[in-house]
């Protein structure tokens, strides 16, 4: 029962007194009330209906706008889809300086399975296992089980095998054409070439992209449509490279070294004629990058361009060069070689030799006197040393066209290049750089004093205008001194009849990863020029932990290990590179007028 309000008594009495019908009066009042309530409701509703209308207008407007946006733009996915349609599997060849193929493409086949389209999965698995004995039919059956819709069975398959798969008649097995990068020379120049793999891949085709080496560095150039017909010409000489690798491998085995590298560089242009690092790998089937351990122990590691080492006495050439450039000494100036202490550090000669109270500048290099170098460094000082090493490129990665080279930053005292740093650096400790650094510095110092930039491109990297690092005269004296090291000094095993080899040995004890130095582990290297009178090529050979037993005693110094290997390399490649031997024995003084005859190229 809903309670109804009582009649408003006062108004009814008033109406009755005026002789009006009170019921009628009340009905009128009620009507007015209902009407005003309805009107309120109506106004309320009108406002809300307007809101709804706005909502619909907005909703349809948004849809219209969205349609315009959709109709006029491309989504990233669509753009990617369009680009994916144009998979370019072509890749330019790579050739050596004489146009011989180093890398090319062959067509192979990929076997792709679409298990959901297979008529008989088990038969397909067994058929594949018959064709490819390395596949396990049980594993294949498991991989073909639903919900698998797409999987690679084999990446690279020969035409015969592909035909056999085709003959299975299974529609769920698809043969996809693949361009495969082929390195017909196998391991030759592996670290230079690097390797290539598949990038964007679809069933019918796949991109071939460079993974390392020049394949990676020149990836865009190799895949560019407009230069596909023109092979990438490297400065490498395939024959020289092959000889260098043979000799280096034999040498490394003979000297019981765990690693070795060799660089042959054109002394005037900086072109790499050969570069090798042992152990090496087959770029057709490169090993996986090591997940643990020292990456430098992997065959993938390029010791020549990537390995950063303290290279020892080879650096004395820079010390001697600077002494002459700054006017401190001439080749015949006598240098104090009496035992030396700097603070509490004794500066010792190798094997605690004593070379007497004085040695000429030439003999400081020939006999490899640490004390003499230290005295010179104290004389010309930190800044001059730093400036020369910077000029020679020792304070930054080389500009050679390899990702490995770019990442190999030399290690040197960046903030605290003190006098003791200058002293140790003067004989090759405290500044670590790559063998390529060393080779290009030797080239720059001995070719007449003009800076070269190491490069793998045929024709070399022109430095314009030419930059002089030392004077012509200093350069000539350095050539004479280097020749003297071979004829009278530590590197006699490197001499090659008729080719006037000059060079400097370096034997650096290896730093322990925990600090300090090993007693019996060394990096031995030999940086050579030939012919010394007018150097055409620089050869740097580095051995990691060599140990040659001679007469029951272990020999680790570079003169016994790296130098003979460098000599053998020079003996074999010089004729190949078009150099004729000098008539008779090499001269004592390279600048005394002996004639070097070069074969016409």
């Amino acid at each position, binding site marked *: 029962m*809903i309670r109804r309000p009582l009649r408003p008594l006062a108004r009814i009495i008033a109406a009755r007194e005026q002789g009006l019908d009170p019921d009628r009066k009340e009905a009128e009042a009620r009507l007015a009330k*209902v*009407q005003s309530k*309805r*009107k309120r*409701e*109506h106004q*309320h*509703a*009108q406002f*809300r*209906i*307007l*809101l*709804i*209308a706005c909502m*619909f*207008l907005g*909703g*349809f407007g*948004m*849809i*219209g706008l*969205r*349609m*315009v946006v*959709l*109709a*006029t*733009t*491309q*989504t990233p*996915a*669509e753009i990617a*889809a369009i680009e994916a349609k144009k998979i370019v599997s072509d890749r330019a060849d790579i050739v050596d300086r004489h146009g011989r193929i180093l890398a090319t493409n062959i067509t192979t086949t990929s076997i792709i399975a679409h298990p959901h389209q297979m008529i008989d999965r088990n038969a397909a698995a067994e058929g594949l296992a018959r064709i490819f004995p390395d596949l396990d039919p049980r594993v294949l059956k498991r991989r073909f089980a639903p919900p698998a819709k797409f999987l690679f069975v084999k990446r690279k398959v020969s035409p015969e095998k592909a035909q056999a798969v085709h003959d299975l008649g299974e529609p769920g097995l698809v043969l996809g054409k693949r361009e495969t990068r082929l390195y017909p020379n196998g391991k030759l120049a592996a670290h230079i070439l690097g390797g290539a793999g598949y990038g964007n891949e679809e069933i019918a085709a796949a991109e071939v992209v460079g993974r390392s080496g020049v394949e990676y560095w020149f990836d865009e150039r190799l895949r560019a449509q407009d230069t596909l017909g023109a092979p990438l010409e490297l400065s490498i000489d395939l024959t020289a490279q092959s000889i260098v690798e043979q000799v280096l491998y034999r040498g490394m085995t003979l000297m019981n070294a765990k690693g070795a590298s060799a660089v042959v560089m054109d002394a005037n242009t900086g072109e790499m004629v050969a570069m090798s690092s042992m152990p090496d790998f087959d770029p057709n089937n490169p090993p996986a990058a090591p997940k643990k351990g020292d990456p430098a122990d992997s065959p993938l590691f390029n010791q020549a361009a990537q390995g950063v080492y303290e290279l020892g006495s080879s650096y004395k050439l820079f010390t001697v060069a600077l002494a002459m450039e700054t006017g401190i000494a001439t080749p015949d100036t006598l240098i104090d070689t009496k035992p030396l202490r700097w603070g509490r550090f004794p500066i010792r000669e190798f094997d605690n030799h004593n070379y007497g109270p004085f040695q000429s500048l030439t003999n400081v290099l020939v006999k490899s006197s640490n004390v003499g170098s230290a005295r010179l460094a104290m004389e010309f000082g930190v800044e001059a040393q730093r400036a020369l090493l910077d000029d020679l490129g020792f304070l930054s990665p080389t500009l050679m066209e390899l990702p490995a080279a770019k990442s190999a930053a030399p290690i040197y005292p960046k903030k605290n290049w003190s006098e003791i740093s200058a002293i140790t650096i003067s004989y090759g400790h405290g500044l670590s750089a790559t063998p390529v650094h060393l080779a290009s510095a030797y080239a720059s110092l001995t070719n007449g004093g003009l800076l070269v930039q190491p490069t793998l491109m045929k024709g070399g990297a022109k430095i314009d205008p030419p930059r002089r690092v030392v004077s012509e005269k200093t350069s000539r004296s350095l050539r004479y001194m280097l020749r003297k090291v071979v004829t009278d000094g530590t590197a006699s095993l490197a001499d090659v009849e008729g080719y006037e080899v000059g060079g400097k040995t370096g034997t650096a004890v290896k730093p322990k990863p925990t600090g300090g130095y090993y007693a019996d582990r060394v990096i031995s290297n030999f940086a050579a020029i030939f012919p010394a009178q007018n150097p055409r090529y620089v050869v740097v050979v580095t051995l990691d932990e060599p140990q040659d037993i001679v007469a029951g005693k272990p020999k680790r110094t570079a003169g016994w290990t790296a130098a003979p290997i460098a000599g053998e390399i020079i003996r074999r490649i010089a004729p190949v590179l078009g150099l004729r031997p000098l008539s008779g024995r090499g001269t004592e003084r390279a600048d005394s007028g002996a004639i070097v005859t070069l074969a016409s190229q």
Partner: protein
Amino acid sequence: MTEMVYRATGPTPGEALLSRWWRTVDKVSLTAALFLFLAGILLGLAASPPLAERNDLPRFYYVWRQAQFGGLALSAMLVVSFLTPDVLRRWAVVGFFCTFAAVLLLPVFGTDFGKGAVRWYSLGFTSLQPSEFLKPCFVVFTAWLMSASFERSGPPGIAISFMVAVFLALLLALQPDFGQAALITGSWAMMYFVAGAPMILIILLAGLVFGAGSLAYQNSAHFRGRIDSYLSSEVDPTTQIGHASSAIREGGVFGVGAGGGEIKRTLPDAHTDFIIAVAAEEYGLVLCFVIIALFLVIVLRALASLLRERDAFVRLAGIGLAAGFGLQALINLGVTVRLLPAKGMTLPFVSYGGSSLLAIGISLGMLLALTRRRPQDELEDVFGADR
């Protein structure tokens, strides 16, 4: 002045039925509905032959069926638009109970045609989807209850209608048919909004809808799959939505030309749920905008005429019907352009589908009947509205 007075006093009792109808009905909306139907036939000519070929039927089988149903739907629309609000209400309430029972009995007698949701009655020559007919009837039923609650000593209509709406929405969600459930709830919410829902309740309700949505998301794989495919930023180009988006992109402003589209071959629902993608691909943005404009005309004109309406029942029923019609179009278009998660819903009058077409004809007929010009209580409203 004469006209104003004439209208204010209402049609004379003796006036012929047809002339009164013609004079009072909203002729613009009527035309718009006709054009929407013609657009549907035009698009069906393009979209349905591939399907007919797949099903080994004559090339234009579906177009012919659509024309037959369309004729039926247009007739129904015209007939219904003749009804007065009182008669309309009576029939619709009866209709509501019948369709309600039909939806309830679906699990027993219905069929799913292998589509994973039991929504249809198979009648041999055709199939019926009772939930399509339930929608307009439910709207009228709700309007009746709500307007009754405004009367002195009236029943608690809003509460009752709310419970019915929730029950229906659950029933439809169980089929599962989330599209229809959303439409039922949406229409009811609009009506309640106009009936004077307190603002705080509206906010609470929005929260509730969100909560129910998340519940459905967690408990229904069907629903979750659709939401997930919507939320993932990358459109898988092999999904229906992906095809629809690329069709719109292909079409551009003027389209690839009649019959030149490809989406009708790749999308199984090109002639129903994704008909606008066919329009966009073959006739470009131009036809899409025409179709959107037609929907807007119908909805906005109905709302404009309801602004003037003083009768609570007519107002509410009209709002519910217009909102249901507009929302259905909005959701269908919103799904195609990827503004909303995928949901199976037809585009009113344009998409192919017998039940859908007929039901839309009936609801539009109801809307036309309710928006016919009628004498209003107060002279000032007539002046006010016409000024």
